[in-house]
């Protein structure tokens, strides 16, 4: 039975995913070069030509996992936000794994609301960035 009973916080979930994505990003160019696979295009941009706020994240993740800081920022600066989250969360995650820290505690509703609004603003700014990057504004 494969059931993860341990409770992970939202930052932990996102960080674990980001670490996995970065690991894939490290081998992604080799896979593309070997197979000729063009990667997953953004359906919104493919259908309408308009980018979404998350366009460029694959390029940015691959660039960051190869230490190409400027290329990562040029593709999608959101990747830096995720990298900061990973840098802040992974030590806590490791401390919890070895028993040096307790389990995650739920945030108060007001704090969750503030974070949701902040993320909405960040996503809106990212969309503006992508619209500018693709010459719409």
């Amino acid at each position, binding site marked *: *039975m*494969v*059931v*993860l009973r341990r*409770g*992970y916080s*939202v930052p932990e*979930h*996102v960080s674990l*995913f980001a670490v996995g994505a970065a690991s894939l990003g490290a081998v992604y160019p080799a896979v593309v070069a070997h197979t000729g696979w063009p990667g*997953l295009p*953004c*359906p*919104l941009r493919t259908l309408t030509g308009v980018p*979404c*706020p*998350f*366009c460029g*994240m694959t390029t940015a993740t691959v660039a960051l996992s190869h230490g190409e800081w400027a290329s990562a920022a040029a593709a999608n600066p959101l990747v830096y936000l995720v990298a900061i989250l990973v840098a802040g969360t992974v030590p806590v995650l490791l401390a919890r794994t070895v028993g040096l820290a307790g389990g995650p505690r*739920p945030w108060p509703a007001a704090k969750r609301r503030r974070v949701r609004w902040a993320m909405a603003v960040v996503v809106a700014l990212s969309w503006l960035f992508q619209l500018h990057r693709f010459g719409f504004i």
Partner: protein
Amino acid sequence: MAYAAENPAVSPAAYANWGQRVGAYLIDYVPIFVLELIGIVSRNAIIWFVFILASLGWWIYNRCIQAGRTGQSLGKKTLHLRLLSEKTGEPIGAGMAFARDICHILDSLACYIGWLFPLWDAKRQTFADKIIGTVVIPE
């Protein structure tokens, strides 16, 4: 178990996490991938068509009928998960399970971000789950 109705403040840990959901999804789609691959490598239009129909049949049986009537497709059964209506706590029926899979198109629209929503959503729902009003819970 009417999750939302009886437990409005239920913890996200009460819902299946992203890894479990991805695992169940992959298990559901492995037979479809294999059937379509056999059809493609056969290099025969009739055999290809038969295998496309077979994969479509499997998708309807597994993802719509089984998941809709029992809450468990093969993947969810293997990983001990269940798809339920967040209002009634009951399986959603084949028609709504079909509609939910169609709504997964919206999960892919903006760089597939909807598929990542269970990473941070309070009820660990995708866009499709929010539209149809479903949750996936561990047994």
